[in-house]
């Protein structure tokens, strides 16, 4: 029973990891905190819901086109709106992104209304029995997709020239200019990738949770907690933090009370900050 919950939490945590990766990548490279992070992923949840409702598309299929659209939107958002703010004071970036968050939440309220929108796939109640474990099929598929995408992202940053160029620009911006890397373009690609990750995570979460406008701020906060627990700017840290928070939420939900699960995550955050301020996999600066 408790082990079942650990497995459930671990699977949910893989999706959290992908979600937090989007925040981590953007911060790690540009030092911009995307305060509209959760709100953007709620838009992806609605997109997945609309694709299922009106086009009959399974979220596991609409995942790719929605992530691609989010990449494009993130790229353009960075080029048009955020780039001028990169070198401005933090509070200006904060106001800009909070405005984006408010527009998205209220836009969702206007278009979709305040009620919850859930997706019913026909395998919603299937489950696999593996040994003594009982695992939901939906959750397993969603987690598998999240892990695959996270793996692809890590490989992109490790092995491709563009991925290395982005890491180089994060490591030494002047150095990147010196050798003629196009920093504006790399930043736009980075914002696109971060937005695509949070979009993909939103689509996968739509398989497990109903979409409601007020979920946005909750997901933003959740992602902050994960990124800080895992280590600011560390990509593998985002994944580890996601899994840890996923498991802790699931355990708190069973052992204590479902309403206490966030409190549990925050307690974990405080503990990590006390014992290991740089986060699980972060590097001391």
């Amino acid at each position, binding site marked *: 029973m408790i082990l079942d919950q650990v497995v459930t939490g671990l699977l949910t945590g893989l999706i959290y990891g992908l979600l937090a990766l989007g925040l981590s990548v953007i911060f790690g490279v540009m030092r911009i905190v995307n305060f509209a992070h959760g709100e953007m992923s709620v838009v992806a949840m609605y997109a997945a819901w609309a694709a299922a409702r009106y086009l009959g598309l399974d979220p596991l299929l609409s995942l790719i086109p929605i992530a691609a659209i989010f990449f494009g939107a993130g790229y353009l958002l960075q080029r048009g709106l955020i780039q001028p703010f990169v070198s401005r004071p933090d509070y200006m970036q904060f106001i800009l992104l909070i405005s984006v968050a408010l527009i998205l939440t209220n836009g969702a309220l206007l278009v979709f209304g305040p009620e919850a929108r859930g997706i019913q796939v026909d395998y919603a109640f299937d489950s696999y029995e593996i040994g003594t474990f009982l695992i939901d099929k939906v959750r397993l598929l969603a987690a598998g997709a999240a892990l695959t995408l996270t793996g692809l992202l890590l490989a992109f940053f490790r092995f491709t020239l563009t991925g*290395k160029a982005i890491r180089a620009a994060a*490591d030494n911006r002047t150095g990147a200019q010196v*050798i*003629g890397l196009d920093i504006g373009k790399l930043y736009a690609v980075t914002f696109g990738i971060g937005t695509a990750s949070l979009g993909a995570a939103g689509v996968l979460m739509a398989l497990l949770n109903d979409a409601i406008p007020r979920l946005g701020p909750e997901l933003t906060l959740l992602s902050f907690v994960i990124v800080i627990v895992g280590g600011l700017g560390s990509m593998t840290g985002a994944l580890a933090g996601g899994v840890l928070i996923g498991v802790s939420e699931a355990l708190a939900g069973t052992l204590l009370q479902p309403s206490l699960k966030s409190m549990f995550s925050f307690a974990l955050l405080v503990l990590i900050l006390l014992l290991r301020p740089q986060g699980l996999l972060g590097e001391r600066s």
Partner: protein
Amino acid sequence: MLDVENLDLAYGDSRALNGVSLSVAAGTITSVVGGNGAGKTSLIRACAGMVPAQGGRIRFDGTDITGWAPHRICDLGLGQVAEGRQIFPSLPVLDNLELGAALPRARKAAKQSLEKVFALFPRLAERKAQRAGTLSGGEQQMLAIGRCLMGLPRLIMFDEPSLGLAPAVVKEMFAIIEGLHRDGMTVLLVEQNVVHSLKIAHHAVLLENGVAAMAGTGADLLADDRVRQAYLGL
């Protein structure tokens, strides 16, 4: 090949360059000397497009590059070995080099370029998997030069390449620069080591408080009393 005309540059209210003109002819070594804060780095950064000039023109090989973005200027073949080396400390040596060839002009030749750089700096080949930040100062400077060569530059601007290096390594550094020049590279050299840099220069400029105070052959400047007193302590 590189022509700077009446360049003005200021950071906010403080002026760093005042009507500086300078010409680097193809196939030569041109040295810029001057004390700390004279504006040498500002001059190089303006040519690279990293800081905007308030007035004047910069031409590279006949193309007016004033106001261009750094990545476009690099892609014309104007390379730079920057002050403070500016390598990517947390990336492996190999990735540092590979990124030097990320320019459109250099991408196709990346493999051959890497072989050449490793032939020139065998130490980099030995340490290619190591994080660049763990290299010694001399090795980091070689990495900065190797990374620049990966971009197939036709002119390299060196900004104090021997700063902070042991005397033996300084000699090695000058040998490398002279070797590159012998193989046809055009060089703009900014150095603390005034004697040595004037000795190898065909043409030299003395920069004082953002003004080109004197220009001539390297030998002219070496023989000048003002230069000897201020920079050579003679």
